[in-house]
């Protein structure tokens, strides 16, 4: 089995942003994504229940360049105004073509 290196971009954000963020990652070149629900605490205070709003956790497997573009886009459009956290990890996948 020959695995290929790929980047995993994980975005944690307010759930109101879900439609915008998933649109954006698709436009920037991601061929897919997965979204889970999380609660959390950070600089913007606690988001631990529906009353306070909750967070989503978006994961998308993308090539290096797309990962960089997503991060740059987040830094420009979202970081200044919204409760958004994002990070990149290195992963190995099979069928690299599916994500490139």
């Amino acid at each position, binding site marked *: 089995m020959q695995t290929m290196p790929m980047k995993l971009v994980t975005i944690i954000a*307010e759930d*109101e942003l879900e439609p915008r963020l998933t649109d954006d990652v698709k436009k920037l070149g991601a061929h897919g994504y997965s979204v889970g629900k999380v609660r959390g605490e950070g600089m*913007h*205070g606690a988001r*631990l*229940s*529906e*009353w*306070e*709003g*909750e967070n989503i956790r978006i994961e998308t497997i993308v090539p290096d360049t797309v990962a960089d573009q997503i991060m740059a886009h987040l830094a420009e459009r979202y970081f*200044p*105004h*919204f409760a958004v956290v994002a990070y990149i990890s290195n992963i190995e996948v099979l069928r690299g073509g599916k994500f490139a």
Partner: protein
Amino acid sequence: MDNHALFASLLAPMCLAFILGVVATRVKSDLKFPEELYTTLTIYLLVAIGMKGGYKLSISTFAEFWRPGLAAIGLGVCIPVWCYFLLRKFGKFDVVNAAAIAAHFGSVSAVTFSEALAFHDTLRAAVTLPAGMKFDAPEAIPFLKAAGVAGGWYEGFMPSLLTIMEVPAILVAIIIARISHEERSVSSDNAPFSEVLRELFAGKSTLLLLGFLAIGFVSGKRGWEQVSPLFDVPFRGVLTIFLLEAGLVTGRRLGDLKKVGPFLVGFGIIMPILHALIGILLGKWCGMSPGGATILGVLAASASYIAAPAACRVALPKASPTLFLTASLAITFPFNIVVGLPLYHYFAKLIYGG
């Protein structure tokens, strides 16, 4: 305050469940509600309020309705204006936070409203009627009305007022923020105004309230009979469960009271009392029944925690949720539920001479 009013508020299962929720967080209970249950209960309450309001509106006349309707809009437009100036001037809040808090106090809380209805229904159940007559039968209405403030009767179109009062205050507050100098300089950060408008009218609480108001209106009595076994009969039981959850959330937020400072705590108690007074006076002036005027007062006194936070996150993303949520959820909401209702009822008694 007489016994019935006291029972109707403090000893009713709804209020006690709220207190139990607060106590549960104080003793660090592991009791917690699944978020989905909260969302489900919210959908239920909004649908039930809207549907019943629409049905009642379908049997009201325009002549009864137009004056209270205008009064409701007036309250929604004016409350955020004076709140904003007080918050800026005496509270020293910045533009966005003052506007966001003002939006919350100008808009309304569907749960506080429901509690007010339940409160009046309980009063109603205590009126002495001719033998064999049920308090919810149409024949009882003249007797309830005759009992004045103690009769617990109110106009059927009250949920329409709730719906009407949800949006304007939020709009007004956002406009104030936008036209103020500070904010203009950073306006490129903000969502365009059309987007804010869409967000407001498509927001889940407005959409459900307005939508089911229309559905209830259109499908009328026949429609109401089909769904009232779910949306009317168990309503107060559902409200009890909801208030238990509200108590849990309020309890967890009590710790934030320190963070928001004494000004906001005072503001969150004094303004509702003031708004309730204004609401009741306005209601009387519009020719509403004592019960209707009290509920208009409750609407004015209540602070939003569904529509307003969602709108502020989009339109005023720099506003601090800790401030506006603590004010509406941890201060004004419990105050209204526990102390406010019987107090405003007492005001109505003084004003209407009940």
